């Protein structure tokens, strides 16, 4: 169709739309509601996954990690690695890496005067953990670790409750040292940290990196190096250069480290598409019905158009254009409303702290943040417009098939 006829169709479509303003508003409202709902549910689902992903990365995972090749399968002291070589340091200190830190991460048993529990001991470099993991700035009571040879220990708030201990008390850490002997040492609790999930608080205790190395008698050896880049995407080249720099170690991106999180994400993204279709079906039926009605009541007029020489493709074009205008208005307002809901009304997330124990059960944070991603919005908008046009194709073709004489004579 030429430009001129396109503008003619647009004018026709626009005017046809406002012959029955009430009807148009009703269907418009259905479309807006549908698009808004798609956006909100996408925002919620992606928000949940995104939150989980961020928590996972922040929960001592980072964007990539380096280990001894056997450490991940069997996190034991003999699978420690030596301090980073010159080549590896060059990559770690390059511009691609924003932060990195080395850690000791080994199983231990912690015993208070009354209770004992199995934990994971982390020997950390407090300065380097800033912004890299949650332990960078987590202490709710007492003080944080100050240096790598800090003599104190930091445990979870709820861990302290379980152990029936408090700041200032001593607890004993028991673990295996380099020679497979049981190494134990008393630590004074200097601070308590708080994490979103109870499981995290019960899982980790933190001491200075040097202190841990001394306790285990392993010199400068480490369990892992964790690093953060500018973006969690496109890590392949960095991981490859880490692998080249340290061929005898295992370098992995977070996707390889946490396959379950990736799986969750894929599951939700696939589910979203089904969900869009369900919502669309709810409003698509109304759209088809409305267009069908619009065509039906214009039988005479369409017959006249045809008698005057308008080709069937133009009739189809007319109905499709009318739908397209309707859809574009609906989608635009739906997007606006969706954006307003997620970024203004619910900008601080949905507070689920009344159900804190329930969110804990699902490993979820107690504040649900909604996340809008451009490609989700694009997906929704394209889907609605394409399916919407498809839904009005039936009324359009129906109209184009009217036989002029019959149509005109109809009352």
């Amino acid at each position: 169709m030429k430009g001129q006829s396109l503008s003619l169709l647009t004018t026709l479509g626009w005017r046809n739309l406002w012959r029955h303003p009430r009807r148009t508003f009703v269907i418009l409202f259905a479309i807006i509601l549908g698009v808004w709902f798609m956006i909100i549910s996408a925002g919620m689902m992606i928000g949940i996954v995104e939150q989980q992903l961020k928590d996972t990365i922040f929960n001592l995972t980072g964007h990539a990690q380096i280990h001894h090749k056997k450490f991940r399968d069997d996190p034991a002291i003999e699978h420690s690695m030596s301090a980073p070589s010159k080549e590896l340091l060059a990559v770690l200190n390059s511009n691609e890496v924003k932060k990195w830190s080395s850690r000791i991460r080994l199983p231990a048993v912690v015993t208070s005067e009354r209770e004992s529990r199995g934990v994971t001991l982390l020997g950390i470099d407090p300065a380097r953990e800033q912004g890299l993991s949650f332990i960078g700035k987590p202490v709710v009571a007492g003080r944080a670790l100050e240096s790598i040879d800090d003599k104190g220990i930091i445990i979870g708030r709820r861990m302290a409750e379980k152990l029936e201990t408090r700041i200032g008390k001593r607890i004993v850490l028991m673990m295996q040292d380099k020679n497979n002997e049981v190494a134990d040492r008393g630590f004074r609790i200097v601070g308590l940290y708080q994490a979103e999930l109870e499981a995290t608080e019960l899982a980790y205790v933190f001491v200075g990196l040097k202190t841990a190395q001394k306790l285990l008698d392993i010199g400068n050896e480490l369990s892992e190096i964790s690093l953060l880049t500018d973006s969690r995407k496109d890590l392949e080249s960095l991981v490859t250069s880490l692998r080249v720099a340290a061929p005898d170690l295992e370098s992995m991106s977070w996707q390889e480290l946490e396959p379950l999180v990736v799986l969750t994400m894929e599951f939700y993204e696939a589910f979203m598409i089904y969900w869009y279709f369900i919502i669309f079906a709810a409003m698509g039926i109304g759209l088809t019905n409305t267009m069908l009605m619009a065509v039906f009541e214009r039988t005479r007029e369409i017959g006249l158009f045809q008698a005057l020489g308008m080709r069937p493709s133009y009739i189809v074009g007319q109905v499709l254009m009318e739908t397209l205008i309707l859809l574009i208005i609906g989608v635009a307002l739906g997007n606006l409303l969706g954006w307003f809901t997620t970024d203004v009304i619910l900008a601080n997330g949905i507070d689920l702290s009344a159900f804190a124990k329930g969110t804990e059960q699902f490993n979820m944070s107690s504040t649900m943040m909604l996340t809008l991603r451009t490609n989700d919005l694009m997906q929704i908008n394209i889907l609605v417009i394409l399916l919407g046009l498809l839904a009005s194709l039936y009324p359009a073709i129906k109209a184009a098939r009217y036989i002029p004489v019959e149509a005109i004579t109809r009352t």
Partner: protein
Amino acid sequence: MSIVLRLAWRNLWRNRRRTWLTAGAIAFSTILLVGWVPIQFGAYDIMINATLRVFPGHAQIQRPGYQDKQKIRNTINNAESLATSLRGSNPLYTGISVRAQGFVLLSSGTRSYGAQVVGVEPKHEGGTSSIPGQVKEGRYLSSIDAQEIVIGRALARNLKLKVGDEVTLLGGGKDGSVAAAILPVVGIFKSGSNDLDRFFSEIPLHTFQNIFSMGSSAHTIVIVGKSVDEQTKLISALNNAISDRSDVIVLGWEALIPGMKEAIKIDKVSGFIFLGILIAIVIFSILNTFLMSILERTREFGLMLALGSRPKRIAGLMMLESALLTMIGLVIGFVIGTALVYWAHVEGMHYPGVEELAEQFNLPDMSRIYPQMKIFNFLLGPITIFVATNIAAWIPILRIRKLEPVEAMRTI
């Protein structure tokens, strides 16, 4: 058939296509609703039952305070005789077992890990926990005083243990003494819950009592009933049964796993909000049809008014029409929806990839969901739609009262 009913029915078929499309929209949302609610509730059933059956049971008898602080000293005296007196006393109980729990350091040749060790009655544990049935290598514990241990798969891997290897237990006894033993691993289980597989081991109850100097005491008596629905009956029966023991209390699963109930609440609330919005979209979608079927007949109404029909009668006719239309959609949707749900109920629904997800959420085996077949679940959706569409129909109907016969007849 009364004249009004006949009129309404005929009016409905004056525009077949529109009627079918509207009925289709209603049928579609009915299918969704009829399917949705039973599947949602079915999923809760699976979730609760699977989680409770792994280990916690439907209810537990404990000493007051044990749930919050699981101290080895806080024991039930003569636990086994109490359990024996409960067994068979009420058909509500389908499984009862006695447990004692402690924390130990498990060591194999070169490795040590902290772990939970549970003393169980091998003969009865199968009735209250799914772990005995999930031994993947070797076998479960043989007798109540056998010198043997079964451990979780991840724990076995971390300790580098195979069936037949020996493992050392080191912990603190009830009297504060050192509790130590060396036991052969006879089985390795995989429960589906990461936490259990990593931190859990079981030994026979009497062996536990010997090692931890517990005498004849234990920590919990676990009771499993027929289903979660009979929870209230189960709890009151238990409370009656232990009324002569002032030293123990009964805790239901809501108290044992407080997170579960809230998790379901969140899901239920959000599920209903989502459904509500979806229904709103459907209603706006079909509102136009109702609107049009009335607006296009302005002339006809004018004529009816002029011939002496009262607006009330016309409104009644319209109400009947929309009720009939809704019923057509509801019946179609209900039949299809029920058939689908029934099929799913028999076959079980399977989502690919859900096992891994369930494991991450600490939910054991959720791979098949059997929708809950209950009258309420089925009728909830259709009733909502019926009410909603009839309210929607009111909007155009209200216009009829304002119609002036002469003017109305002039409109095209």
